């Protein structure tokens, strides 16, 4: 059953019960997505560390994370076996797409500044 208070708050801007349900579902899906991103990045970091012997660290404050991993990809695939190259590129492509899908909703524009894509 829908939380009455949530319903009441939603009504202030004509947000229907159906909308609230889909917001809730999306919220759960996002949380799962973050886990997936985390696991993929962890795998990617392991692969980078294993094959290159050096790591990369996400930009301070999370800026660009997890895209930072992409920086080292070109250097690590040169001179490696074909299967390794494919695996690394596949993992990074998935990580990139998943991260893109998780585009920000809240908190990504400093007040008094301006958001850009």
């Amino acid at each position: 059953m829908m939380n009455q208070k949530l319903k009441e708050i939603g009504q202030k801007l004509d947000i229907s019960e159906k909308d609230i349900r889909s917001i809730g579902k999306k919220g759960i899906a996002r949380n799962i997505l973050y886990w997936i991103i985390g696991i993929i990045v962890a795998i990617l970091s392991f692969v980078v560390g294993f094959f290159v012997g050096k790591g990369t660290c996400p930009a301070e404050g999370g800026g660009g994370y997890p895209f930072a991993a992409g920086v080292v990809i070109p250097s690590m695939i040169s001179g490696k076996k074909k299967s390794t190259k494919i695996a690394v590129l596949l993992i990074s492509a998935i990580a990139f797409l998943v991260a893109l899908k998780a585009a920000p909703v809240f908190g990504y524009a400093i007040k008094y500044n301006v958001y850009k894509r």
Partner: protein
Amino acid sequence: MTYKLKCAVWELTLKCNLRCSHCGSSAGIPRKNELTTKECFKLCEELADLGCKDVSLMGGEPFLREDWFQVAQCVNNLGMNLNFVSNGIVLDRYIDKIAKLKPKVVGISLDGIKETHESIRGKGTFDKAIRAIDLLREKGIQTTIITTVSKLNFKDLPKMKDLLFKKNANWQIQVAMPFGNFKKEQILSKEEFYSTAMFIAKERIKNKFEDMPVIGAHCYGYYSKILPGCKWDGCSAGTSAIGITSDGNIVGCLSMGNNRFMEGNIRNQNLRQIWENPSSFSYNQKFDKTKLGPNCKNCKYGIKCKGGCNSMSYSITNQFHNNPYCFYNIEKNIIKV
């Protein structure tokens, strides 16, 4: 720990052609001793020297300063991203010059449908803002519409959506805070605040991001159990971002207008000295859990979130790291989930 400056929000002048009822800067008349062109150029060099990537020129109204183009060009020449925030009133006069600068983004304020926008900003301002948005889009310049919500206009959001849908511009929604011209009684209630957040989430789910790229600013968050996309690593004031007032004062964020938070003036010290001074921006650079205020001290996300948007926290509770306008807090104490 060393912090890297990434973004500067620069009030180029406090001069403004509008007197908006919610203006946090109380803009209108220029500050007494605004930086000269030469001082602006020097500041640009100091920003570049610190590795700053992104400079947003705003005001007051930045296009009212006579040398805005030279300063913007200097930002460009030093390899930093250039952004503007404007009310759009005089933008049509300068659109070719703006296009020549290739800014990363231009933000235009739009606070409601025509009637509401003009009740906040003055007669004749709505059509000019819309014209500015259209001109920017015609020139292929990324445009963000900035809507500052309060009791005066939050009910307009659904109508604004119809107006902005497929306009090919980003839509940044932020909360008006009680400083400057803005009256405390006009701030959104926590429930209204949460309702606007639900609106943002709903529109993001219902539409393709390209059709309705709406986002909530830093004042929207944090760690909701219901709303999607609320990851937040704390206020960036003084850790990766700074605000610069038109007379050269350095603050963590321009919405911390209080003199108490001015870390220095670039006329007395260079920017690097201010940035690297161990006592600067201590509220964020030396944050630890003991600094969390009563609203946040028992929260399991307190350490990570650092108490939300600090300017909002301070303007409402008179202390940092204590923002009561928090999704997690509202869900726990009002919605009871």
